[in-house]
């Protein structure tokens, strides 16, 4: 995970960048942030990456300026060019091109943010073209460079202006806590669950239906901890510089429908898709009210699937979500009547049922995600049909424990319980504002968990960084 939150060199760079930013005069602080991002990109050790990113930024900057002075067609051209770069990279990777530097590019995050900026200019949401340095900072800000979240230029620019005032103790405290918590999510929870998932998916050649079912749970938790971990680290590192980034996850496994799930999971991606794919399509197809919305949802979520990659698993995942949402929309009235007849229109029973069903649909979609390609999907389909004999419960249990020794799987699930508790408690309590008897033991517990339970050397890399 060189160059990312998993490497020591990243923290060294982060410390240096913070010192440079804190010591710089107010007017030079944005430049210090821009230079820090350039240093981060250079530290990836792929000479073509900084060149490609600077050229892309230049192209978007020019398109933006021309769009203001000569009309939105220029923004459209910039959008087409950015989308072209993204598609070309995706196609090249799908064809098996071995461009090591491309995978370090964080290309989809970079290009989708560029598209958002140009679209906002064309639509008049953004009134002025960005200066080059500000645009570079927006597109390549190093904590969010590899894995998001997707930001919008306007709000991000406001954050940059705010950060020019210099370091704030409150931001630093909150930032460091988020950074440490993200590290816990990634290195303790996600990495331990990754080890269970490897066993659960049957690396020893013994994948079965019940084990695959359990593997769905294990992988879902792993994916959440991995992605939320990166997001919290990116938010924490940014907050140390006074920049607030989007919180991408809001208790997604408590969602009551697939639509609700996407309001809580990778929120900045969902919002991007809603604003720049779904809404325009819905507008175009507005003559067919329900049909148009369903079709727009289907296309938008198929695009989300393909954003992850060109494998069949990703495509199926996207289409699956599109179908689920379409089904939910078309049967909304029927389901409402059904629950009303049971006296549970807004009751706890309906809520629990919805959460459980949604969670299982999500786990199923993650199995497509995990399989990624056609061979993987076929292997999973074959495995799913086996193992339903008398010993199925044992197999299911083997999936949950990943076939690991007692100490290992217990620690993994214990860390998941801690993760869940903190996420739930975090909605009600602000640790920084809580009394010292709660605050300091919590800090100590977090520090000790990081020291003793982190799997730093077996780390698998961030799952979403490959998109």
């Amino acid at each position, binding site marked *: 995970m060189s160059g990312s939150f998993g490497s*020591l060199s990243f923290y060294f760079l982060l410390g240096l960048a913070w010192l440079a930013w804190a010591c710089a005069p107010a007017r030079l602080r944005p430049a210090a942030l821009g230079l820090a991002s350039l240093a981060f990109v250079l530290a990836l050790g792929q000479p073509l990456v900084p060149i490609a990113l600077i050229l892309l930024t230049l192209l978007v900057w020019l398109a933006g300026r021309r769009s203001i002075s000569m009309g939105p067609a220029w923004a459209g051209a910039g959008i087409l060019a950015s989308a072209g770069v993204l598609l070309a990279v995706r196609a090249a990777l799908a064809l098996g091109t071995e461009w090591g530097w491309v995978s370090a590019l964080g290309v989809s995050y970079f290009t989708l943010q560029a598209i958002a900026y140009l679209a906002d200019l064309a639509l008049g949401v953004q009134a002025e073209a960005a200066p080059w340095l500000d645009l570079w900072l927006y597109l390549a800000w190093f904590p969010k460079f590899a894995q998001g979240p997707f930001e919008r230029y306007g709000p991000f620019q406001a954050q940059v202006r705010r950060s020019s*005032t*210099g*370091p*704030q*103790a*409150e931001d*630093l*405290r909150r930032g*460091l806590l988020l950074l440490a918590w993200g590290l816990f999510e990634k290195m303790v929870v996600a990495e331990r669950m990754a080890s269970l998932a490897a066993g659960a998916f049957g690396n*020893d*050649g013994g994948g079965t239906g019940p084990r695959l079912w359990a593997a769905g749970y294990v992988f879902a938790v792993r994916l959440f901890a991995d992605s939320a971990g990166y997001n919290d680290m990116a938010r924490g590192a940014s907050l140390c510089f006074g920049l607030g980034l989007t919180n991408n996850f809001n208790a997604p496994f408590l969602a009551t429908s697939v639509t609700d799930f996407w309001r809580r999971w990778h929120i900045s991606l969902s919002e991007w898709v809603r604003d720049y794919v779904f809404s325009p399509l819905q507008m175009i197809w507005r003559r067919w009210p329900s049909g148009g919305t369903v079709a727009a949802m289907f296309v938008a979520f198929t695009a989300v699937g393909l954003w992850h990659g060109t494998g069949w698993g990703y495509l199926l995942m996207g289409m699956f979500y599109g179908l689920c949402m379409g089904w939910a929309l078309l049967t909304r009235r029927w389901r409402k009547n059904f629950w009303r007849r049971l006296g549970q229109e807004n009751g706890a029973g309906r809520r629990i049922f919805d959460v459980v069903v949604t969670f299982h649909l999500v786990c199923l979609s993650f199995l497509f995600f995990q399989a990624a390609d056609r061979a993987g999907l076929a292997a999973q389909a074959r495995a799913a049909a086996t193992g339903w004999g008398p010993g199925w419960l044992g197999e299911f249990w083997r999936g949950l424990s990943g076939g690991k020794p007692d100490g290992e799987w217990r*620690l993994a699930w214990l860390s998941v319980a801690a993760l869940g508790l903190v996420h739930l408690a975090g909605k009600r309590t602000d640790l920084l504002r809580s009394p010292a008897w709660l605050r300091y033991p919590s*800090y100590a517990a977090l*520090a000790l968990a990081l*020291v*003793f*339970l982190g799997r730093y*050397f077996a780390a698998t890399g961030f799952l979403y960084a490959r998109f």
Partner: protein
Amino acid sequence: MPASERAALKRLAFKLGLALCLLAALGAWLEGEARRAPTSFRQKRLALEAQAPDLQVLVLGPSVGLNAVDPARWRLHGYNLANNGQSLYYDRALLEQWLPRLPRLRAVLFSLGRPNLCVTVTSMNESARGFAYRREFGIPHEDAALRSDPRNYSAALALDPFKVLCWAVNGGGLVLSDLSPSGWEPLPPLDETQQMLQLSALVARKHADHQRAMMVEAPGYGLGQMESMLALCRARGLRAAVFVPPVTRDFAAQSEAGRPAELGALKALCRANGAVFHDYFRDPRFQDGDFADVDHLAAPAAGRFSGILEKDLLSGLRPDTATR
């Protein structure tokens, strides 16, 4: 920046410094405990240092040698320096390091597991073992990319801080080898039920592990390491013997592909360097009940096998009575 903000930042810096000092103290304690842990590498280094002046036979190789050879059964004073996952790179480095310190050495026995010619410690996914060689014997990691890894310099990190904590607090956590004074690790045999349940499952898994670990281009690398070691022995006038320990019948059948070519190259190398070669891979004197798993002899059979080795590989060498 307002004075109140500056004061708040100073307070935060002080608290962070204090927390880091506490963590550093904890880390130092943990490191001290980890360095005391009697890992097999540490046990071997200490035993070898103590026995070096009198040692006449040295055994090298991976776990198949570690579990199969008990030099205490020999009339000559031997020491088993084989270890789990010890690749030929470490065999060679250990031999180069210790040859000048073993004045009475007469013979070196090299045990070879099925994939040994084709693996490095990194390809075996057991690279953590490489760190122990650096700490205990000063041998740089086989994988040059891992030489700057912090685990090279911290026993606590290499052993896993949580496991070290458990070990320091209640003696559990670390899996530590129970080595005999001659460096041998005796393994218990499987009972009949275990044999039935475990051996068949293990055959496929172990074979798959070996296949994963073997690198296509590597036999040349392994043969190169072996050639250097045989040349070192020849230069010192030592008897050198290469042997392949026995495995279970099913495992032998699974592992046959590619083996004849490897053996041919190995035999030619031994001939060219005046070394003895013995292949016990399918030795009928050993049955499934003699094994602790598919390719590791259990203690009773290891005793018998050590006797066979003495007869086959060490015959003609007279014990130095002054040292035994």
